[in-house]
């Protein structure tokens, strides 16, 4: 094996992604230090890392969200690099900058690139400059009068969005001018509370949309490659539940168009590391528009790994060490179909209510074409402080139908007791004719699946 990209790396995250990063480091011959909160002292990441350090109390704001504590932990343990995972500090330009100033490599893009893509208005402008079409919409909205004139120009229904936003917070669908004042007020208040910034902008609301995203990798040598798309249309309240690759909803021409657009945008910001360019695909018009770019590894990266055979986390780490992407665009071949289901500790029958607790039983399926990314084990206490993701089950097959069958059989073999999970919900989705026929849109779960269940109940 070539010499490791780093001698030692700090894992500044928790849960399954911390375990995933440690696995990639093991493969690359890198020692790992797991930065853990007090609640995660006994976590799988703490046990599998070379070493663990406690960075603070359970609440994330006092541990995983403290840039100074994480950088101090990296310096104090002799780490050359920090992997931020996803969520937490992964997309904070200030964290990337602090790492740079402290002389620790941040496994991710430059603070400038994160900044450029993190502000949605700036991202949309850059995308437009790179020739990546955006959803018809406005710039910053600073008054009701601007909102009214912009909404008339774009055409109702419109979607109000938070400039600093993500995850669906600060968003409102507005169907008529009468609804506009109240919706603006609510969206701005929500954005202010969630992001500390109440700035809004507006987009045309697409009734039947699919979420399609392109995985890219860029390096410090100017190479940018894409690894095809993922389709994450099965969502609930803008939270992805099922992801698959390739998308069953687009044709070869659209696939090339989106991939080219994503690569152009990544080049435009001299992107280094793993990133994802997200698009909303209007199924009625057959057109795709730029949504945003995520400057980190994504939860759903395994579906891309399953169809390309590439290790995205290992690539990220090598890129951070200054190495080029280990393969050329021409070497990327897509094989078969992969689906990922996020198993959350939530009660789908009660509005996806979080269900923390101790896993009195935990047994996950194994077999051909199956992969399970998890930090759980029998006896593990799912803490109430963090997100509810327990595991990601990924099934690969030669066709979409085979991947679905394999996934359903895998979910049927999950033995999880002590907490309620979304596994039964996933089986209901997989069995539905709309999902099988790839007719699911980003609001299908709420408007069709859950709405019908309510009628039936």
């Amino acid at each position: 094996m070539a010499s490791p990209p780093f001698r030692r790396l700090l894992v500044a995250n928790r849960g399954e992604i911390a375990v995933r990063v440690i696995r990639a480091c093991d493969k690359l011959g890198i020692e790992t230090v797991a930065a853990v909160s007090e609640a995660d002292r006994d976590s799988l990441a703490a046990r599998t890392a070379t070493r663990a350090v406690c960075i603070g109390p359970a609440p994330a704001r006092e541990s995983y969200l403290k840039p100074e504590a994480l950088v101090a932990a990296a310096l104090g343990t002799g780490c050359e690099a920090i992997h931020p995972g996803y969520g937490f500090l992964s997309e904070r330009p200030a964290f990337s900058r602090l790492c740079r100033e402290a002389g620790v490599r941040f496994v991710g893009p430059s603070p400038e690139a994160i900044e450029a893509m993190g502000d949605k208005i700036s991202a949309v402008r850059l995308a437009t400059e790179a020739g990546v079409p955006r959803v018809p919409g406005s710039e910053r909205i600073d008054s009701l009068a601007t909102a009214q004139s912009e909404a008339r120009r774009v055409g109702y229904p419109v979607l109000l969005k938070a400039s600093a936003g993500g995850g669906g917070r600060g968003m409102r669908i507005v169907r008529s001018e009468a609804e506009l004042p109240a919706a603006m007020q609510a969206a701005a208040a929500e954005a202010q509370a969630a992001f500390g910034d109440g700035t809004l902008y507006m987009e045309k609301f697409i009734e039947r949309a699919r979420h399609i995203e392109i995985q890219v990798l860029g390096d410090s040598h100017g190479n940018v490659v894409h690894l095809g798309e993922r389709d994450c249309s099965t969502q609930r309240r803008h939270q992805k539940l099922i992801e698959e690759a390739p998308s069953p909803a687009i044709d070869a021409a659209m696939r090339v168009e989106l991939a080219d657009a994503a690569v152009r945008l990544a080049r435009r910001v001299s992107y280094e590391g793993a990133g994802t360019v997200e698009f909303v695909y209007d199924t009625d018009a057959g057109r795709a528009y730029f949504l945003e770019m995520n400057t980190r590894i994504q939860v759903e990266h395994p579906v891309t790994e399953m169809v390309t055979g590439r290790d995205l986390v290992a690539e990220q780490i090598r890129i951070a060490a200054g190495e080029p992407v280990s393969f050329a665009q021409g070497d990327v071949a897509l094989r078969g179909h992969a689906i990922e289901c996020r198993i959350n500790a939530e009660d789908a029958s009660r509005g996806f209510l979080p269900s923390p607790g101790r896993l009195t039983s935990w047994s996950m399926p194994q077999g051909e074409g199956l992969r399970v990314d998890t930090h759980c084990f029998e006896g593990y206490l799912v803490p109430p402080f963090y997100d509810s993701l327990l595991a990601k089950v990924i099934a690969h097959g030669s066709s979409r139908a085979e991947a679905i069958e394999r996934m359903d059989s895998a979910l049927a073999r999950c033995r999880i007791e002590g907490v309620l999970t979304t596994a039964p919900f996933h089986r209901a989705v997989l069995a539905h004719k709309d999902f099988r026929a790839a007719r699911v849109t980003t609001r299908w779960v709420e408007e069709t699946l859950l709405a019908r269940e309510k009628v039936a109940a």
Partner: protein
Amino acid sequence: MAAASTMDLTHDDVAKILKIIDEAAHLDEVELEFAGLRLHVRRDASPGESVRRTAASAAVPAGVAVPAKKAPVAEPQAPAGAVAVRAPMLGTFYRAPSPGENPFVEVGQHVKAGDTVCLIEVMKLFNSISAGVDGTVVAIPAQNGALVEYNQPLVYVMPDPASEE
């Protein structure tokens, strides 16, 4: 607390006592007796908890090699009766205000609750850590200039016997 009677033992006082007991890792049971009032506190060290922990460390997903490892901080043996001054944050531990100066405290030295006993530096920001109780420093398990983790014991202080002021 001049002329304090047992009637003045407030909820706050009890909370403070409980906190002190909680922070003294070796204490399982404490009995305090005032004139006419007895406070009996017992830490719940039920075997159920340790059994569950054992189960947690024993069962891991198949195919994942998990080295048997305890919590990150190996707790040093606390001197009997002493109270631990713990790190309120992760950072670098310093015994003196600056290199070359005398340490804030030495073993055997008497301290007041508000006295600074050490510093923790986090990214060039120095945080003064105070003793928390009146008493005598009996041990300093943390190493000068070393990384200390959150909640790690830094200094042990033997509290003064309760005095009728």
